[in-house]
């Protein structure tokens, strides 16, 4: 008994050593866990920031305009000429502008407010309606409710992103009296106490003499600017609507922190857009145009269709060039090539090629395809060829690994029944390696899909407003579009860029999903 007890109890030194080893084991496990958590955290931050931005760009505000399609305005040449109607942007835009002026007659007064009101809708935004009417000319002369996207700055304002403001509910207004020129005095006992408190907070930290914050007061469709605010009364400068709306109401006050001169939208525009919203003419709808429109200089009209089609065409060229050449090269190198210095030289260089920065391939493509072979600039054909150059070492390396993983017993089995080497390779080895080969090829393609740098050098960064109809048309691709949008100054491009990134990621996920699917479906055990 004592003997066994002695042997099962390690000596003190051994016990200490054992403890140290266990501690090292545990530490390593914690390091791994920390690393994984850090990676997951980074991923979550990325997804959250891009996702929340993209989500705000996934919807936008459109305004409804009830217009009469006056034939004299929209079809001066006659309703039977659809091409003319579809091109008549001025006519349709005129209808929309007239409708806005009808709604807000106060804008007629001066040129600045007329321009501010007509900024609500971009001229080109009426193009879809024009095309729709051109396709059904029987609507000419009738009344329709047409919608057009709201100007991007106002859209952002309605989403609460464009302008920093604070909304405070005012108390009961008891009296509205005219006060001098174009002004009113609104009174109500203690109506503005909450607003005063809010203003005190908003003005903290502002230098004396700096522009005061703007305060807007809204009741129904009417909005005015407040000055001379005291606890029980304030002076109201009416921006839109009727002063009578304020009497016996509990209006909403908005403290707008940035002064009017520093904003992209004026107080008047805010007043109008709030009125349109109150009238129920502004609606927040899914932004399908992101997928159906092409690039535009106006964020509210911009979409990624041309870039998506361009990316697909480019990938098609890349796949058609890189996959067969890469896979066959891998099969030759792995199964047929004699092992000697020449083969080794090729192998080393292919591996090196995979590590070459992608922009170098762009330079090569520009020099070889465009300057030397005279292919068209900015075309998916050239882009695809450049990306094929970049992809194909990846395809070769992945395919060789897959071929190497096929057990030699399959080869000997086929050879032993008298298959030639080529029959052995193509009847037995390649089918077994196919899932791995396809995985490598698709992952290489996915990398190419997200590539920007080499395409910049062959001119695919150009502004492309039309969907390319073939691989030689001028085109751009998704990552390059993201790059161009992110360079734009207006704030509305920021969420749009995120939305485009999400679309690109969706395509990448689709490709990776395809890889998983192919693996599951065709992976065979041997």
């Amino acid at each position, binding site marked *: 008994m004592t003997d066994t007890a002695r042997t099962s109890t390690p000596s003190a030194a051994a016990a200490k050593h054992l403890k140290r080893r266990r501690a090292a084991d545990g530490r390593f496990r914690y390091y791994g866990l920390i690393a994984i958590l850090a990676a997951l955290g980074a991923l979550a931050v990325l997804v959250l920031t891009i996702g929340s931005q993209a989500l705000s760009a996934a919807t936008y505000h459109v305004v409804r305009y009830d217009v009469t399609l006056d034939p004299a305005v929209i079809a001066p040449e006659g309703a039977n000429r659809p091409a003319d109607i579809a091109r008549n942007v001025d006519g349709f835009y005129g209808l929309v502008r007239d409708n806005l002026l009808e709604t807000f007659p106060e804008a007629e007064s001066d040129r600045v407010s007329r321009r501010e009101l007509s900024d609500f809708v971009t001229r080109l935004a009426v193009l879809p309606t024009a095309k729709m009417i051109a396709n059904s000319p029987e609507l000419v002369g009738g009344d329709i409710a047409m919608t057009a996207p709201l100007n991007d700055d106002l859209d952002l304002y309605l989403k609460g992103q464009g302008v920093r403001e604070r909304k405070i509910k005012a108390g009961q207004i008891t009296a509205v009296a005219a006060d001098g020129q174009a002004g009113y005095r609104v009174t109500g006992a203690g109506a503005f106490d909450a607003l005063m408190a809010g203003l005190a907070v908003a003005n903290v930290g502002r230098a004396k003499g700096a522009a005061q914050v703007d305060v807007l007061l809204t009741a129904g469709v009417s909005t005015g600017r407040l000055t001379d605010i005291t606890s029980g009364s304030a002076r109201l400068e009416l921006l839109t609507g009727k002063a009578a709306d304020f009497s016996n109401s509990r209006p909403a006050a908005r403290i707008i922190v940035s002064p009017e001169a520093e904003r992209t939208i004026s107080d008047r525009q805010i007043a109008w857009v709030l009125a349109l919203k109150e009238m129920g003419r502004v609606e927040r709808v899914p932004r399908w145009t992101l997928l159906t429109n092409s690039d535009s200089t106006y964020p509210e009209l911009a979409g990624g269709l041309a870039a998506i089609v361009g990316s697909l065409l480019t990938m098609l060229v890349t796949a058609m060039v890189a996959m067969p050449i890469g896979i066959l090269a891998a099969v030759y190198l792995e199964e047929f090539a004699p092992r000697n210095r020449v083969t080794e030289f090729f192998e080393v260089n292919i591996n090196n090629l995979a590590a070459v920065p992608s922009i170098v391939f762009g330079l090569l493509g520009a020099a070889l395809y465009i300057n030397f072979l005279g292919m068209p600039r900015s075309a998916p054909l050239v882009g695809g060829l450049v990306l094929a150059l970049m992809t194909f070492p990846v395809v070769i390396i992945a395919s060789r690994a897959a071929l190497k993983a096929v057990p030699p017993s399959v080869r*000997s*089995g086929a050879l*032993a029944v*008298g298959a030639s080497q080529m029959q052995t390779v193509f*009847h037995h080895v390649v089918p077994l390696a196919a899932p791995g080969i396809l995985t490598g090829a698709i992952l290489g393609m996915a990398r190419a899909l997200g590539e920007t740098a080499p395409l910049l050098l062959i001119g695919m960064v150009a502004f492309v407003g039309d969907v390319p109809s073939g691989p030689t048309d001028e085109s751009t691709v998704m990552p390059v579009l993201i790059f161009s949008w992110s360079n734009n100054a207006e704030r509305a491009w920021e969420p749009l860029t995120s939305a485009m990134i999400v679309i690109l990621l969706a395509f990448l996920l689709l490709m990776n999903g395809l890889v998983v699917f192919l693996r599951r479906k065709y992976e065979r055990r041997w």
Partner: protein
Amino acid sequence: MDTGQGTAMIDDSLTLPRAAEAAPRIDCRNIKVYYGQAQAIHDVSMTFPDRAVTALIGPSGCGKSTFLRCLNRMNDTIENCRVEGEILMDGENINDADIDPVLLRSRVGMVFQKPNPFPKSIYDNIAYGPRIHGLANGREDLDAIVEKSLRRAGLWEEVKDRLTAPGTSLSGGQQQRLCIARAIAVQPEVILMDEPCSALDPIATARIEELIDELRNRYCIVIVTHSMQQAARVSQRTAFFHLGHVVELGDTNQIFTNPREKRTEDYITGRFG
């Protein structure tokens, strides 16, 4: 009906007419094999009689597998392996440049240590060889070849209802018999077996040994084995390899009961190897 009778019922068209005397099917003269600079086989000369099983025994690394692979030129596929000497089949040296190894391998079938059915259906495993060699005229012909081969390998009764199941779904012993059927399907004259039972359990091994005994009536069989009992049970002739030399070659009975060489006796009694 047991498989032995099944075999007997099949017509003999697969078997080529041969002389009744035990003429050597293969005649190897002065075979030397090199892997790069290293010589694996030293000047081996031996013959393999038709319709008999010859066992190659010897310790690991003695060159018996290498020698076996000379007989269907599988060594061609190994980088920097070089074979010298003459191997005569029907008076032709199979190492001649004008012998097509693809044709040779259809005459000399091979079964490997680890069952290696193709990851295809049972049917396609058998049909693959006849297809690439153009042995069948049409589907019915191919069906007949598949059935005949599976019957000869004693596997027909077990798989006839699931010919479309993958070959890899069979048990190890069945897989090995499938590989034997696959080798038979291309109508070989010689079957080489490289330790065909080393990955199998004793019951599957017994089944394969029975099968070898049946196949002996039609083919010249060469089997490499590590099991002395197996060599004694299935073979008529035995060659003992050691360090790339054939130490002793003779009737199996004589080798196991009365070896002429001291090294052979030491090996078969388990004193080394």
